[in-house]
């Protein structure tokens, strides 16, 4: 049998249609496509794909089960390593992880591992399920701070091994970045809710509206009888550019813009939380968060959406697929362009003019790429005299985050690095005994799967600590 050289394409909503609705863009494989894609897997002995997966899913094994249409078996294999398969199948950057190591990929396109993972998880979630068996309790209590990808993974792994786990979430809904950050069209909230229900069925308790560092402290968690604590509190405070005009009305951090739309449902017709919806929107930054914000703006009804990024297409840090989707939908990329000032409406004659103080323009400067920096990325250098202005009604700043100081400032002996990230050992242990950490709180803004990997590592270390 000859090998099909390309991945089976993922069916998607057409760009014209989807750029105006919040339904999921990628529709998922059907059964025949999934089996046919699975058959592309060579099932090679050394399994390089597994080493590319931060949580080490036995990829060829689950794909083999798809070949023989044993989907539940495939699901069981995946969930041995991953607590959130339907999420990872959608948002993992497989092209730079498992799929980048695929043997088939040397000559052809790699196996579409992510799409197969999604197929297995969705099929499982759509079928009636036997009640999850709660493991026998091992008598140990662990507190997990934050219900994002790292916290949920750590909680899930511990619960599967009999730990009594309580997850503390600051917001009113569990899921962390999966619910406030990643938009519905990329990751439907029902999928996150479903994965969380599965964890609850395993015995994980989730306490919302509790801010560790304020409502309770890490030390109090120990006083309450928890024997270990995992901090997965996420990335924290949004960064701004430090240019004039960033506080004009209509200027948002990506966190605020996405939180308003996702968590607070500002995209609905009659929302309770407002968001600036119309006109021209400029998103500053080139990561996945920037792509999410730009594509959200389109769907909210913007007439024009720009991505403003200071380097070129090649350095754009977002996933290729997200960039392609954004382009198909009509997002305009203004590359090698850096904002230097935001301009606001000012009517000196009418101080009470309601338009006063709203952003109207973005002054930018053209950039060129200079010498590579210490990371090997070519440094953008401004071209003198190349300033120009773009008319905008809304600006979204998506240039990253810095760690939240709340837990650090209320936990004595918890050491952080120069950027404020919590310092951990290879096992995720912090400078405090029995306190572990992982995800963006340690690394700064990164991916869902790397946070999950960190949650997993810490769970393993906690189990070892208790001799399990």
């Amino acid at each position: 049998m000859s090998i099909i050289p390309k991945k089976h394409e993922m069916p998607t909503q057409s760009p014209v249609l989807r750029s105006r609705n919040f339904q999921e863009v990628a529709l998922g494989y059907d059964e025949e496509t999934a089996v046919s894609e699975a058959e592309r897997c060579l099932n090679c002995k050394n399994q390089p794909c597994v080493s590319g997966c931060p949580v080490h899913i036995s990829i060829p094994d689950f794909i083999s089960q798809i070949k023989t249409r044993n989907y539940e078996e495939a699901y069981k294999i995946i969930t041995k390593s991953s607590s959130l398969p339907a999420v990872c199948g959608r948002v993992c950057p497989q092209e730079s992880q498992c799929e980048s190591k695929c043997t088939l990929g040397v000559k052809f396109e790699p196996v579409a591992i992510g799409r197969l993972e999604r197929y297995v998880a969705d099929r499982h979630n759509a079928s009636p399920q036997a009640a999850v068996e709660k493991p026998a309790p091992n008598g140990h209590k662990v507190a997990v701070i934050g219900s994002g990808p790292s916290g949920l993974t750590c909680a899930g792994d511990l619960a599967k091994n009999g730990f009594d786990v309580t997850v503390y979430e600051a917001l009113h809904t569990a899921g962390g970045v999966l619910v406030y950050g990643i938009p519905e069209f990329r990751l439907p909230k029902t999928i996150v809710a479903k994965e969380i229900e599965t964890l609850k069925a395993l015995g994980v308790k989730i306490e919302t509206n509790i801010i560790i560092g304020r409502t309770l402290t890490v030390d109090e968690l120990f006083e309450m009888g928890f024997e270990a604590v995992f901090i997965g509190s996420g990335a924290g405070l949004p960064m701004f550019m430090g240019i004039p005009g960033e506080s004009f009305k209509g200027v948002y951090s990506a966190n605020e813009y996405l939180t308003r739309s996702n968590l607070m449902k500002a995209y609905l017709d009659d929302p309770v939380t407002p968001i600036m919806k119309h006109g021209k929107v400029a998103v500053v930054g080139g990561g996945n968060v920037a792509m999410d914000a730009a594509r959200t703006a389109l769907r909210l009804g913007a007439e024009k959406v720009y991505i403003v990024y200071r380097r070129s297409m090649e350095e754009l840090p977002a996933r290729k697929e997200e960039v392609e989707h954004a382009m198909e939908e009509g997002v305009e990329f203004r590359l090698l362009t850096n904002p230097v000032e935001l301009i606001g409406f000012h009517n000196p004659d009418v101080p009470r003019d309601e338009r006063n103080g709203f952003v109207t323009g973005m002054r930018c400067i053209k950039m060129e790429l200079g010498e590579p920096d210490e990371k090997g990325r070519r440094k953008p250098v401004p071209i003198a005299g190349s300033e120009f202005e773009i008319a905008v009604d809304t600006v979204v700043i998506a240039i990253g985050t810095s760690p939240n100081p709340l837990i650090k400032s209320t936990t004595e002996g918890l050491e952080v690095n120069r950027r404020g990230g919590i310092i951990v050992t290879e096992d995720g242990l912090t400078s405090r005994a029995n306190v572990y950490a992982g995800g963006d709180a340690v690394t700064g803004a990164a991916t869902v799967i790397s946070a999950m990997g960190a949650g997993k590592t810490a769970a393993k270390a906690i189990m070892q600590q208790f001799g399990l």
Partner: protein
Amino acid sequence: MYRIVNRKELNRTVTMLEIEAPLAARKAKAGQFIILRVDEDGERVPFTVYQTDPERGTVSIIFQVLGATTKKLNQKRTGEYISDFAGPLGIATNTAGKKRVCIIGGGVGCAIALPIARAFKANGSHVTSIIGFRSRDLIILKEEFRACSDEIHIMTDDGSYGEHGNVCMPLVKMLGAGEQFDEIMTVGPMMMMKFVVEAARPYKTPVTVSMNPIMIDGTGMCGGCRVTLNRNGERITKFACVDGPDFNGYEIDFDEAISRNRMYVDFERRAYENTCNLLRKREDE
């Protein structure tokens, strides 16, 4: 779900709610705030803590009916529930080491000023309170202020009670007469706080202001509550939810803060009218 254990109308638009939230009740201090949602899918709204009762496990807030959410909140009765209540948030007011302080509250801001006045008093400070309202029927908490103040001025804009005028008038008089305060602490409408800062400026008396910008998460994540400080010729961005809500009044860019708080006035007006219509319809049915 969080139960309302007591509800009291202080005047026709201002209501106090005592809400069961044992963890927050143990922790909350003067100057801190909480965030609540009235119902599922409601917006997140910050309210400063009025008082706590750790033994009863309750936190009380005082609010004015201004928009859609406060309108809905005002419909809640004792024994009913609100869906979310998180806190305390923000940094408590620093009351340490101040011998003579002046607390200036305006309107419903007095509900925040009172616990701060009490905290200073409990700390041994000499407390002068100036509280201002539009008119007599809008006055709240005057007996409570009297109980924790060594000196008090009650102001009304229309002269219908107490002294006629705004809160800056007695302040200017006292400062002009040589009164030395270690600190002036002010809570109320931003425009009022701005004027308090201007009144104190010639005397270089330290002024702390309690900022109340638009917020969403309240934990530092969104940056919507950012305020700009002018410090030594530099403009510094701070987040009111984690760095505040108290700031040095001389550093705050009030014009920007006032403008930012008006970002959604149109939306808020519409939402308020919709809620009123909805409630009216429900009453008709």
